[in-house]
């Protein structure tokens, strides 16, 4: 390496790819570092296009939008977005089951003991009902209601958060407007060649199909499943997790909306996978994620089309993937963000969250020059942890089941899971305790929602629950349920809320 090569300052970032990942990255970098003289160029090819799916999100996206200065009403209208209070899981524990994993709490803790412990003691008694009947976002979801949470921590209205469901094809253009207004330069065209510095092996320039050359100091690979820089050029390697998550295909199709606008996503388990239903203002997004080892493409497509609730609006589109992540998400001077970095099926809407996490960490560790091995190692450590913890949570959905109606479910139910997950299951099934961590996406209520929603009932409960008289606890449960129902009932109808707040997209 030349004496000064390692010290070359980083002042030009080139983002390759203009899908959700590319434009979110460009918007994030421009908003947070544009004023510091950082030049940001985004290269995208309309001829290649974007993956065009990815419409359900997690509450963290609101932080991202707020940080970069996005106006919520404008964003909702521009992307035909709806609000999302959780995900309904149908047919997962057993065929016919349904539960909602909400973005919020269950009940309220009492004397330091989690609410689900009290519920567990009385589960099955008349009038006690399912755990999710004690969650405000679940009750509101089932009523089709929405209201932003209260900031008063004493109010039951503060016990939830919300996310969005938006049109994937409208979201990247919205981010593009935001990014371009903050100085990002867009270049249209296909990258056909990548030049590496001979000694360091770092990327120095890209050549476009019309011969233009784009030079940069740091490159963000947002080329989706192509992984043009991170894999095709730098061969970062891939950790394949299909041993635990064998779904490797999806077929997607939009349809007309039918019925009220629901503030939640639905994930329905099928013979060898599951289908999503994402309600948007103007249509419903649908798709079927499945394992080609257990189901043919035709059968998967038939299942999807049979389940559509409205008129189909396009031809079904097939996608292939391998679940896992790049061995190094940041290699040399290339950072992979989005599908180029890895893919975990959208069962818990985690991909856009992982994009956001990648951008945030990149901003936090943004290097001054090419001499940045420490920053690179820390970025990779952090992102590996995020991916692995999401992975475990997704595996739980497949593994915690009583379904035995297909080879697929028999395989998933009986397979060996990672030790980290096996230990969690053992702890929970004993007395309902959940092993918590500080650095991971899914917090205790999420684990409880899926475990109990999928019939993993602890064999007993927290011993402290017995310290309170049964009648008193039952009275408390009934009171809480009534209070939450009343609070949810007082919320506004979801569609009416969008209209009243000028969040509906104007008809074309």
């Amino acid at each position, binding site marked *: 390496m030349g004496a000064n090569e390692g010290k070359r300052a980083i002042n030009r970032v080139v983002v390759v790819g203009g899908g959700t990942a590319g434009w979110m990255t460009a918007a994030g970098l421009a908003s947070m570092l544009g004023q510091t003289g950082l030049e940001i160029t985004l290269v995208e090819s309309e001829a290649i296009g974007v993956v065009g799916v990815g419409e359900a999100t997690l509450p963290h996206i609101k932080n991202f939008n707020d940080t970069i200065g996005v106006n919520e009403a404008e964003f909702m209208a521009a992307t035909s977005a709806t609000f999302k209070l959780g995900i309904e899981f149908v047919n997962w524990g057993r065929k016919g089951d349904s539960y909602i994993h909400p973005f919020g709490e269950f009940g309220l803790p009492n004397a330091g003991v989690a609410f689900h412990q009290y519920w567990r003691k009385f589960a099955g008694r008349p009038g006690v009902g399912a755990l999710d009947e004690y969650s405000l976002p679940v009750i509101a979801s089932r009523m089709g209601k929405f209201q932003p949470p209260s900031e008063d921590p004493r109010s039951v209205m503060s016990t939830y958060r919300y996310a969005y469901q938006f049109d994937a094809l409208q979201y990247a253009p919205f981010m593009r407007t935001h990014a371009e207004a903050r100085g990002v330069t867009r270049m249209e065209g296909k990258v056909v060649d990548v030049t590496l510095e001979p000694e360091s092996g770092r990327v120095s320039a890209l050549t476009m199909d019309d011969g233009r050359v784009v030079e940069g100091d740091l490159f963000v690979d947002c080329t989706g499943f192509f992984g043009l820089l991170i894999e095709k050029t730098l061969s970062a390697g891939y950790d394949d997790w299909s041993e635990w998550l064998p779904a490797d295909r999806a077929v997607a199709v939009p349809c007309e909306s039918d019925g009220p606008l629901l503030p939640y996503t639905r994930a329905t388990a099928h013979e060898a996978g599951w289908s999503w239903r994402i309600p948007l203002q103007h249509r419903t997004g649908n798709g079927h994620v499945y394992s080609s080892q257990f189901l043919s493409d035709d059968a998967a497509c038939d299942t999807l089309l049979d389940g559509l609730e409205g008129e189909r609006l396009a031809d079904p589109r097939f996608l292939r993937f391998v679940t896992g992540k790049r061995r190094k998400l940041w290699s040399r001077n290339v950072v992979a963000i989005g599908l180029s970095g890895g893919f975990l099926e959208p069962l818990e809407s985690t991909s856009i969250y992982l994009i956001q996490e990648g951008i945030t960490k990149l901003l936090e560790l943004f290097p001054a020059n090419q001499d940045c091995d420490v920053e690179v190692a820390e970025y990779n450590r952090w992102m590996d942890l995020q991916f692995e913890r999401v992975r475990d949570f997704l595996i739980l959905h497949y593994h915690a089941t009583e379904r035995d109606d297909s080879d697929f479910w028999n395989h998933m139910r009986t397979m060996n899971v990672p030790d980290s997950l096996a230990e969690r299951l053992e702890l929970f099934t004993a007395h309902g305790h959940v092993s918590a961590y500080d650095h991971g996406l899914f917090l205790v209520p999420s684990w409880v929602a899926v475990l109990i929603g999928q019939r993993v009932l602890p064999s007993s409960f*927290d011993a402290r629950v017995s310290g309170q008289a049964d009648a008193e606890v039952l009275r408390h449960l009934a009171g809480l349920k009534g209070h939450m129902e009343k609070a949810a009932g007082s919320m506004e109808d979801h569609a009416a809320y969008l209209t009243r707040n000028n969040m509906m997209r104007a008809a074309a």
Partner: protein
Amino acid sequence: MSTERILVRGSPLQAGVIGAYLASRWLGPGRSLELAVGTEDKATGSFATRPSVHRFHAEMGLPIDQLFARCGGSPILAAETRTADGAAVQLPFSAFGVPRGGVEFHQYWLRASRLSQQADLTEFSLSLALQNAAHKPPLAQLEQLPVDFGIAFDRSAYGNALLSFAKAGGASVIEASSEQAQSASLVIQCSSDAQAPKWQGQELNIAQQSGISGLEWHALSSATRRFANLAAPLSDCVPEQAEWTRLALAQRERMADMQELLNIEDPLASTRPALQRKAEVFAACGRIPTEDYEVFTPPEWLAALWARGVRPRRSDRMAERLTDSQLLDWLDQLRGQIASLTRQVQAA
């Protein structure tokens, strides 16, 4: 149903902290709690806690202001310790300066230091200003300020107050040499050597910590709280034991990281992976990576790294969003505010 019996062995202070919490958060029908209190503590004087003392006492229903008055309480806003070569180090519980636009204050300070001579980073810490002031503010006033604080109690008064609270809550104090004090469904004890914390079979060992003020308190209170939060029948709690031990070991690692940072000649050469990472990342860009189950707050790590001479080679690029004059004015203002707040508190 047979009675579950917990026996706590320890000094009055150890038995007091553990016993008081368990009396209020564990004791109930079918359970008994016995405290085999050993001879008086060899240690005397003051006993430092950390900011989690507020939650600990609130959970057991023993208001901190009552203890404060009865046990010679004095607020502490930073942990105190010494490096191997005897230099005093203060680890403030709350942030230096205030973060801005998602970036910690010290990043702005680093940048400003390259522009012009700046006051020492410690002068931007309200915690340190109050900690080192001639008079500590009264509790009620401190609660209104944007700082976290623990309390230093008179050791024997605090131990005795907690023992009384435990007894009032149904625990009984027994002779350490009595037959009763030899076995129980569970024996909880504190080992003073470096023995690993462990809950296995009928024994739960809390590894005692020292060297940094407040750590002895932390080891006792967090171990007890964690045990109570993993409540399960004592005859059927193997997964809970494993979880308790896993968390206790993780926290012990974080404490050992700090001890090593304060003592090792070159923190960047540490063989402890998490510590080496902290030192390296801090030296590279001023950020301090955290692990799961940290014991010390980020400002404490910052102060310790700083005290040991680890200096960032650059500041965060996001700190460059302010112009030079905006930055310098802001720093001046902040320092002025901290000084005037400290004066006001002193005058009150």
